[in-house]
Each structure stands twice: as C-alpha cells, then as structure tokens.
C-alpha cells in the first residue's frame, strides 16, 4: 500500500479553511446514522471507518448472515459516495469487473466504446471474493493497487475516493479459491465480524421484522469532506517512540517462534496510518499507543502465517498478536 499521490483532487489544506472539530464530530454522526440500521458491531464499524479514512481497502470475514453487506451499504449511504456490488462467482471474468469494449452503432458508424464495469464506483463491495477465480481476483486486486484499469490498451482512472470492501466466508470452503498471502497483504485491514449478543440480536429482530423498509439513513458527510479527512489523518502527529514501537512490533512478527512468516514493511505503514485514523476518529490531535494496540489485530492477522506447531496447539493469529503487544 504505497501511494505517493494524495487522495482526492490533491488540493492543499489551509488552517483557515479546515474546521477540525467539525469534521471529527462528523465521525460520531456517521456512527449514529449507521447505528440506525446496524445493531452493535461498534468495533467493526470503527475499523471500517478507519480503513476509509486511511484510503485503504478492507477484507471482511464472517459467517453468513452477520450483516457484512448491510454494513457496507449503510456506510456508503451516509455519504454521497457511489456504491456498487460485485457478487463473485467461479464463472466471473475479469472484464465483468473492470469493463470491456463494446461495439456501438451510431450515425457515424460502428465504434468501440469502453463500457465501465462495476468497479467504477467509490465504494465497491466484492462479495465472497474467495469464490472468484484467481484471474478475476488478480484483476480486482490490481485495480485496488493501481486505482486504474487498463482495457484495450487504454488506461482508465478509477474515481476518487475509491475503496474495495471485500467479504469472504470462513466456512463453506468447497469450490473456493483462497486469496494468496501476497494478495491479502494488499488489504489494509482484515475485519472479523462476530455474532451479536442476546440483546443485540433481539434488537435486530425487532428492527427487521416489523417493516419491509430498512430504517432511513441521512447523508451526513460528503465526498469532499471524506477527502479532507483523509488528508488530515495523514497529518496527525505521532511521537517518535510510539512510531518506533509500532515498527518494532511488526519486526517482532518476523522473529517470533510461533510465526512462520512475519509481516512486511507494508504492515508497519498500515499500523501507523490506521493508528492515526483512529486517533482522528476519537477527536485527538496525536496518536496514542492505545491506537496502535487497537489496530494491531486487524492490520496483522492476515499478514502472518503461524507455525504448524502453534496451529496444532490451537493458537490463533489474534492470540499471538496479543502476546506480542503485551
């Protein structure tokens, strides 16, 4: 995840133009609006928002029926961002995602016109990405990385801001194509969605069994405001010792006995950037070590491979990460 260009239109920020407090308060309003449709899952929502403010892509993993798609739709609904959904199947072709040239007849005759695919949206929900073929996965992931699509020798830039929120199922592995580690590393965060508790599930049942319509959501943040917040997030100051500790944490994953393959420097960048995003979302002007600790699991869990002995002992990546953080 190395991007040299600033997000959005590349405009510069001026202290006189930016009301930081107002923008930070928008985050709380987003939480309130999304909460009208999504019950609980506060941590998942915060991680999703941190991913968006960091201009990254997220991989959501959970059992079916836990509201992954609903949450992504709700998040895109509180903004004026364009939303599209890609349902991955084994027969999905790369051109089905990126778009293709079609012949169109006009008064001037026949001409090739590039028909944009569903990837040309601000928020792209790639459902069950592990069901797509590796070739289709590669096309999607290449678009994620380059923020552009090349078709018939022509390069088409993707809209800004651009996020891919992919989902996958930990069960039902029959007929799936697991993402290789090199490609999962391109996702800024891997977010786990857990089952709700009793109270939350009761409220979900009340909410969705009394009306056909989902509760309305108000748009509270604009595309420009999201881009401004993304620039501000990158400017959030971080103390030298906290940054060094974050880098050392990632390096520890390479030396840990229970980890066969540790995380790359891309993880160090992701950890610091998402730490800044979390600090911004909490209304602070500086990164706290608590931010790094909170973002370590979603940043690292898909970037490390446990040793077989650790797996045999029943250790999970999150448990190993927690032991490194302590």
């Amino acid at each position, binding site marked *: 995840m190395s991007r040299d260009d600033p997000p959005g239109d590349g405009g510069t920020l*001026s*202290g006189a133009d930016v009301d*930081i407090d107002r923008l930070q308060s928008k985050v709380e309003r987003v939480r309130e609006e999304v909460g009208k449709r999504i019950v609980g899952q506060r941590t998942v929502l915060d991680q999703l928002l941190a991913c968006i403010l960091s201009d990254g892509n997220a991989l959501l993993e959970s059992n079916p029926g836990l509201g992954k798609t609903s949450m992504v739709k709700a998040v895109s609904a509180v903004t004026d961002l364009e939303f599209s959904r890609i349902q991955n199947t084994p027969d999905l072709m790369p051109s089905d995602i990126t778009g293709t040239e079609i012949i169109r007849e006009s008064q001037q005759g026949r001409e090739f016109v590039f028909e944009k695919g569903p990837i040309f949206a601000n928020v792209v929900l790639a459902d069950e990405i592990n069901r797509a073929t590796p070739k289709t996965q590669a096309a999607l992931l290449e678009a994620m990385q380059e923020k552009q699509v090349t078709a018939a020798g022509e390069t088409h830039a993707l809209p800004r801001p651009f996020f891919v929120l992919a989902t996958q199922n930990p069960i039902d592995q029959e007929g799936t194509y697991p993402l290789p580690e090199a490609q999962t590393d391109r996702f800024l965060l891997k977010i786990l969605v857990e089952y709700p508790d009793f109270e939350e599930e009761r409220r979900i049942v009340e909410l969705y069994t009394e009306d056909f319509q989902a509760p309305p959501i108000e748009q509270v943040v604009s595309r420009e405001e999201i881009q401004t917040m993304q620039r501000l997030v990158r*400017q959030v*100051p971080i103390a030298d*010792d*906290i940054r060094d500790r974050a880098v050392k944490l990632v390096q520890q994953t390479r030396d840990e006995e229970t980890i066969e393959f540790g995380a790359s420097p891309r993880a160090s960048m992701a950890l610091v950037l998402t730490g800044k995003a979390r600090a911004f979302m909490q209304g602070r*002007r500086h990164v706290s070590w608590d931010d790094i600790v909170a973002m370590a699991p979603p940043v690292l869990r898909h970037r490390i491979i446990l040793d077989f002995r650790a797996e045999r002992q029943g250790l999970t990546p999150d448990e190993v990460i927690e032991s490194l953080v302590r």
Partner: protein
Amino acid sequence: MSDAPPRQRMADALAEVRREGYKVAVIYAVVDAALVTLAVNLLLQVVTVGAIPETVRPLAPLSGVLSGTGLSWLAGTPVGTSTLAGAAAGLLTFVVEFALRVRRPLVEQFEAANPSIRESLRTARDTVEDGRETVMALALYRDVLDRLRDTSSLELIDARRLVVTVTVLVAVSLVSIQVAVVDLNLGLGGPDGGDGPDQSPNQRPYEGLRDGDAILGDAENVTAGDTELDADLQTQGGGESGNGSSAAAYDQSGFASSADVESQQAGFAPSEQVEDAELIREYNLKIRDIEDDDS
C-alpha cells in the same frame, strides 16, 4: 508572545518546561550537597585520623602567584581539614546529582509528573523538533498549550523527600554546632590521642593536682637566722571580725616579747576562719619543740 506562531509558542513552552526541570535538579543537588558537606565535616571533627592534619593551607602552592597581589595573606591562611573535605564532598555531590537528574530528558520527567498530557506533550515535542506546521500539527500545539495551563512543575518535586532531607540537614547542623562547643573528639589516630604539630588549644595537658614532692623537691636543711625574736601569740575567737578586737586578742596572747610586733589582721575568707585557736597554738608549740630537739 501571543502573536508568535503556534510552533514558536510550543517551542517556548518546551524550553520553559526544560528550565523547570533544571531548577528542580538544582534544588535537589543543593540540598543533598549541603547535607553531605555538613555530614563529612561532622564526621571528621568527631573522628580524627592521625595521618590527616588538623588544618591545611590549600593556597600555599600559590604563594608565588599571590605575593604580588594584596591577597598574599591567603597563602598562609590555614583551613580546617574537615571543612575542606566537607566542601569537596559537597561539591562532588552537587555535580554528580545534577548530572544524574538531567540525564533523563527533562520533558519526559515533566510528562511523568503530569500524566494527563504525557503522550500529547511528547508528540508535540517531537513534532516541533521535526519543524512540522501542518494543520493537525498546529492544532496539536494549540491543544497542548491550552492543557499546559492546568499542569504544574511542583509535581516534579518529591515534597516528602525534600522535607526529610532538610530536616536531617538541620539536625546535622545542630549536632555540628554542639560538637564544636563540646569539643568532642574520639581521637582514633595515635597513642597520644591524636597530638600533632598543630595542636589546638583544646588539647593542652591536664593542669590539675600534681605530685607535691616533685614540685617541692628534696628536703633541705635550713640554717637558722641570726636574729631571734619571741613572738606572742594569742587565741582568737571564731567568727570575729573587725580589726580592733582581733588586734587586741593578738596582743594579749602568746609568748612575751621584748619587741613590739605590730599586729595586723590576717586576711582570710570567713569560711576558712579558724574555730579553735587554742588548739592551733598548742600544735605550733609542739612543732617548735620538735624542731628545737632536732637542731
């Protein structure tokens, strides 16, 4: 100050934090150095080591340099060894303690004393050092400057430790004064109890009762004089005062004398007044008889 840009104000605030840290280090170092000075001075006054002289002239090597100035008298001025050692130990304590206390970054010490702004202050410090003036950096500076108003550098001082140290300092100073007055010395340096070339007045030998024979020497025969006089002694009542009555009593008692001896009132303290003059006269006669027999 208020017109300065936020980064400059933040830098000034950090400089002020560091100054407070230096002040605290000086306070601790001065108090501990004073305590060490007095303690060493007291120890060397109570325990005298024979190899160490009582006084020294530390500026004697500089006599050549000082001779041409009006300060030549300094070269010969003796200074107490205990005082000099105490001063040296105190100075060393000051330097070492100050160096140890400022070794840890002063801003971090302030953060530890004010944990509510620990992370934000440290972040602001690093951001100022990097010279950042982004929107978020400036917002951080303003935020930290606002919160610094609610902090205090008094938290850097361990009041209890300071009070204890000052209390001990006062106690040691009082003991030092008492030792100087009482002149207590354990004299562990030699057989003479620490006598040295520069003996203080407090070390003069005992001048109490001595051997009388050693003072009087051997008995000698005293030759009789050429003139013999008869003295007429009279008894005198106890407790009398006044020249008239005692002179009369003196004339009326004792041996007859051909020569008039003008009587004089002997001067003695009333508490030593002889109560039984008759007994004394009798003893005197006996002593004279014994002497006559010997001659």
